């Protein structure tokens, strides 16, 4: 199977300008975008990066990108706006007229041309205003998008645009900085706390591509918490096998253990053998849609209770059912389905039949299954006892200071501590307390200004709206404690 070809079972990203959605490719399953319903069947077999359009409810490969602004722009254009009057009646085509044209199978070009021709003021607009007008109409009336592979950049952008609260308002440039300042790379051992639904875990795994270890510390006492975004990365098993989980609620007692049994570290078994116990994150996923912004904490416990009592194959399959439902649901939610709730219902309803492929995939990933939650945690403990962390990354909804204080002793000397927070004050607290505790140097507390530009002939300027909130980053470097 060529990794560059859209295949059944893949998670795929649909990009239509700022509107980004993730779906899993299932034959004959409806998906929705901009209130338009279609299936992804026709996408299978095309390479990633292909442009598609939806026409009369059918997905088609777009042979040629629809006419550009320049092509439509009429020769007649106004010099400035001195003769323009603001009136509602400037467009003579009604929305109904336009919908009628679409239904009658009118070509995209023709629809846009019609809209332009029925604009009373179009000819008086300046050339640039004409181009802007056409672009707006195209985006509104044409259903053209590209299908690309999920990665940290697309997933972060999707969530940041649609549900920033779910990812602690972590902006792409800040995520990039976390990875850079954490010196994340192949072969290292990373410790992290991710309250961003798995976005950061995924971004770290992506930068390691199967070599190294990642220990994710999660709130609660169970083996893991739901991380819907992590699933969307669609990692192959060798990548997800790097991931180990550890419940923060056991961290204090574990630290005490390690203190009394320090020399143990040499005697534990080789950690590589631990890897095939993993991929618990898909198994433990719960219905994201019903929770909404309420986050995973309470539900974790619900789930953990279940998992503890019923740790067998049958339950695993049942969980997969839920999982697959969520795999649809969660992305949709993130893609702003709450805005068009009718669609949301439909998507929820069609979670019934699970494709064989889907099941097979999951089974394969979990072939070593059957390990108890306690065993999983013991395995992770071995990783922590074997390896000092090469970096510690915290991007959490929880107050960072106590977490940092509990985990910094696991960090090797001369390694980065990277803490992200939406708020400045908790980070200043963390900064202050880490400095007071000692053992760290080279303190930095930063925020980032990200400024986007429109670069067009004679119309270059920063974009009119910007995001003023990058969140804050606290970075420092551990030293050897004497």
């Amino acid at each position, binding site marked *: 199977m060529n990794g560059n070809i859209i295949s059944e079972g893949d998670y795929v990203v649909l990009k239509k300008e700022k509107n980004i959605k993730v779906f899993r490719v299932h034959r004959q399953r409806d998906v929705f975008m901009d209130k338009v319903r279609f299936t992804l069947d026709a996408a299978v077999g095309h390479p990633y990066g292909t442009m598609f359009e939806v026409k009369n409810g059918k997905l088609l490969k777009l042979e040629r990108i629809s006419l550009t602004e320049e092509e439509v722009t009429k020769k007649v254009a106004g010099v400035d706006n*001195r003769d323009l009057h603001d009136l509602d009646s400037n467009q003579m085509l009604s929305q109904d007229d336009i919908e009628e044209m679409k239904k009658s199978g009118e070509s995209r070009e023709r629809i846009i041309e019609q809209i332009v021709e029925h604009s009373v003021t179009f000819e008086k607009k300046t050339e640039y205003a004409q181009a802007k007008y056409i672009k707006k109409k195209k985006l509104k009336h044409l259903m053209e998008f590209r299908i690309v592979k999920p990665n940290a950049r697309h997933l972060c952008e999707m969530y940041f645009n649609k549900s920033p609260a779910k990812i602690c308002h972590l902006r792409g440039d800040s995520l990039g900085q976390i990875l850079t300042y954490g010196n994340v790379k192949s072969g290292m051992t990373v410790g992290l706390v991710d309250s961003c639904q798995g976005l950061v875990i995924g971004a770290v795994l992506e930068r390691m591509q199967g070599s190294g270890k990642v220990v994710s510390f999660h709130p609660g006492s169970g083996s893991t918490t739901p991380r819907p975004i992590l699933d969307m990365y669609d990692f192959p098993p060798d990548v997800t096998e790097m991931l180990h989980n550890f419940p923060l609620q*056991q961290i204090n007692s574990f630290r005490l253990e390690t203190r009394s049994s320090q020399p143990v570290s040499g005697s534990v078994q080789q950690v590589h053998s631990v890897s095939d116990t993993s991929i618990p994150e898909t198994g433990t996923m719960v219905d994201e849609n019903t929770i909404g912004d309420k986050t995973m904490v309470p539900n974790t416990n619900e789930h953990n209770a279940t998992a503890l009592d019923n740790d067998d194959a049958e339950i695993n399959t049942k969980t997969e059912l839920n999982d697959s439902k969520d795999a649809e649901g969660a992305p949709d939610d993130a893609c702003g389905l709450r805005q068009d709730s009718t669609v949301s219902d439909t998507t929820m309803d069609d979670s019934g039949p699970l494709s064989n492929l889907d099941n097979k995939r999951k089974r394969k990933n979990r072939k070593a299954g059957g390990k108890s939650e306690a065993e999983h945690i013991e395995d992770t403990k071995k990783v922590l006892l074997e390896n000092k962390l090469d970096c510690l990354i915290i991007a959490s909804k929880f107050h960072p200071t106590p977490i940092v204080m*509990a985990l910094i002793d696991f960090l090797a000397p001369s390694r980065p501590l990277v803490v992200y927070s939406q708020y400045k*004050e908790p980070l200043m607290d963390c900064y202050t*307390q880490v400095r007071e505790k000692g053992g760290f140097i080279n303190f930095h507390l930063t925020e980032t200004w990200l400024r986007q530009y429109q670069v067009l002939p*004679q119309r270059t300027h920063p974009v009119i*709206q*910007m995001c*003023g*909130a990058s969140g804050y980053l606290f970075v420092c470097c551990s030293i050897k404690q004497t």
Partner: protein
Amino acid sequence: MSFVGYKKCVEAGDTVILFLRYGHMHAIRVKEGQTFQTKYGALRHSDLIGCEYGSKIVCPRGYLFILHPTPELWTQNLPHRTQILYSTDISTVTYQLDLKPGSVVVESGTGSASLSHAIIRTIAPTGHLHTFEFHEQRAEKAAEEFEEHGISQFVTVKHRDVCQKGFGLDHVADAVFLDLPVPWNALSSAKQALKKEGGRLCSFSPCIEQVQKTCEILRIMGFEELYTIECLVREFDVRTSSMPIVDLGQSPDVGQVGNQSAAPMKDNLGQADASKMEDTTDSLKKNEQTDAEPQTKKVKTEQSEAMEMGDIADSKGNKNKIDADSASKKPESADAGKRKITFLPASASDLLGKIDNRNFVFKTGVAPSQMPGHTGYLTFASLYPI
């Protein structure tokens, strides 16, 4: 005189600002017999007449405040005929052009007269504004507004394309402001309008290409001290926020590794409050023990509620009692009675917030997720006597 001098009470004909709540205002002109529909219900203009500015006015379904107009409030509420300059740019323009009472200013285009009102405010009563607009309707409307606002004696509005016909002014102005698509075509006439002893010029353009061309011509024409800037305002939402303290589990060895979540600053206590600190630690410990394993779920639920409620926005413009304990008032929280607000003074960190029922509660000014990213480039230049 409402825009250049304060008066105490509303009279018929005044333009007044109705302030409903933060970000919800209207500018209306008070006319006996008329009614204005607000989201709080109908407001009879006659009820406003005689009211002191700043008064609270009760409407059928709420109340609002009646504010004295200022150029800044007008800018926020004026009818848009064009893109307008907002107060951040306006204050920069006024400041950089050295405007003061007595200044003579030339402006083009008038646009929606947002900047014009602010200029007139600053140069009145001894200065004068000459404002030019190439769109006839707009020029007429602006003149009407100046009349209504009692400031027409300080301004001359002309319908004219200054790029083609110039300002027709000879060495009378202390400052010239240009907001034109092709400002360079007006520069020669602008130079002519400036006083012989020199003056200041500002050109506002949204696109850098306009700035490049303008600067090039300004230099050629002998303007000096070219200074191109952008001014962006970032407004903070001041609120009490909180982040939950994660449960790190219990450890018999509390003093060593345990309980760091509850009392991370224990080692750094000031002597005066050490005893109080101990109380705090105790009370948290008690809570923990009561809510141990079997009840974990409940504790968690509260935590996530707190997370939900994390941003207790002090909704703008309304007094809002900070109720740090509001979470506990939810019916689900059975153990509300057990709670206690705990302070952890003494450490440097208590300057940043406090630990309250396993939440870190702090005041913060939240940067906006969406803010103005660009309004325009302001290019200033000086003309000096030769």
